């Protein structure tokens, strides 16, 4: 009788153990992670505008030789870039067009400099700067964008409205995109 009970017990325990273990699958989890740095970049970062002869070449004697503001005002050119962060900003710093071959103070009635306002626009966001004051203008928040930035010019004028001293003139506009998250 004891033998019978013992055998039954062994078989019973064995079956129970086997039944419990078989219900468990092995489960695995593999995490994938990565990051995207906050950045801004230009794919077109350099445009040269040659506006040609800058002075008025015909008309009244009083205006002949003075700066022709129509050469620069209303002109625009695109840069192309992107920023991938919500808080990215755009800043413009404009530098006046200066006669690069003339040195010293211009004689009375003459000018060797053209000031202007430069405006960079991305969709509905603009940033501007005037060459009348040094340093960049206030930044504008562009956030996420991947498109053209249109740089336009306005309010161009010589300091005294005099006749322009002959020579090559050169100025520049720097558009700075600053990534932030």
């Amino acid at each position: 009788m004891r033998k019978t009970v013992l055998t039954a017990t062994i078989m019973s325990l064995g079956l129970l153990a086997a039944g419990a273990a078989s219900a468990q699958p092995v489960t695995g989890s593999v995490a994938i992670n990565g990051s995207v740095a906050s950045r801004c970049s230009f794919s077109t970062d350099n445009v040269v505008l040659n506006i040609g002869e800058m002075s008025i070449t015909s008309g009244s004697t009083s205006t002949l030789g003075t700066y022709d503001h129509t050469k620069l005002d209303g002109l625009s050119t695109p840069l192309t870039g992107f920023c991938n962060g919500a808080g990215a900003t755009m800043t413009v710093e404009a530098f006046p067009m200066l006669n690069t071959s003339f040195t010293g103070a211009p004689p009375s009635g003459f000018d060797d400099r053209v000031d202007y306002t430069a405006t960079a626009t991305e969709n509905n966001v603009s940033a501007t700067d005037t060459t009348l004051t040094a340093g960049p203008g206030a930044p504008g928040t562009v956030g996420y964008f991947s498109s053209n930035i249109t740089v336009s010019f306005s309010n161009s004028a010589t300091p005294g409205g005099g006749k322009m001293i002959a020579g090559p003139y050169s100025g520049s506009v720097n558009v700075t995109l600053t990534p932030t998250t």
Partner: protein
Amino acid sequence: MKRVLLVATAIAGLAFAAPSLAQTVSGSVGITGSVADRCVVNSSGGGETFSDTIPLGELTKSNGTLRGDLQGSSAISGATVKFSVTCTGSSPQVTLSATQLTAGLATPPSGFSDTIDYTAELDLDKAAGGTVPYTYNTATAAGPSTAPLGGQLSTANNNVRVSAYSFATVGGQSNVLSASPSYAATISVSIAPTL
């Protein structure tokens, strides 16, 4: 004739009865056992779970779009992790699923994305030789992919491998990926006993 045989049989019975005090009792004990149909993770000391991480690092190239090497149809170096699993059954049931690689940001503007699809692949080595691949594409799979292995799982080390490849930015590979330090996805694997 029958009477003679009967007497002889009775005598024979007496002959066996005589040495009864020296006879031993014999018995038998049956031993039974079983091997449960189960799977265990060797590397975790016989546990039932395994985990690892595939770190992809910076996901974009200089123009802000997804890195070209991640777009390839095979896993880059470091995008495959290996495990050792033992199953006692004849054909474990395998389930694979995966989630998109995403930063979970607010809906990005046109031209941007914060979500990346990819193909997750689970490779299981069979004891009889050969490897059975299971794949799950996060862009097209409607639910977890489940199928039997179709044979016993190999007992070799690293017989279970998980990889990821063919990453594709949702909305198009030309979309710029939104900045975030934490793009994350999960590949889930289940290797269940046959029964």
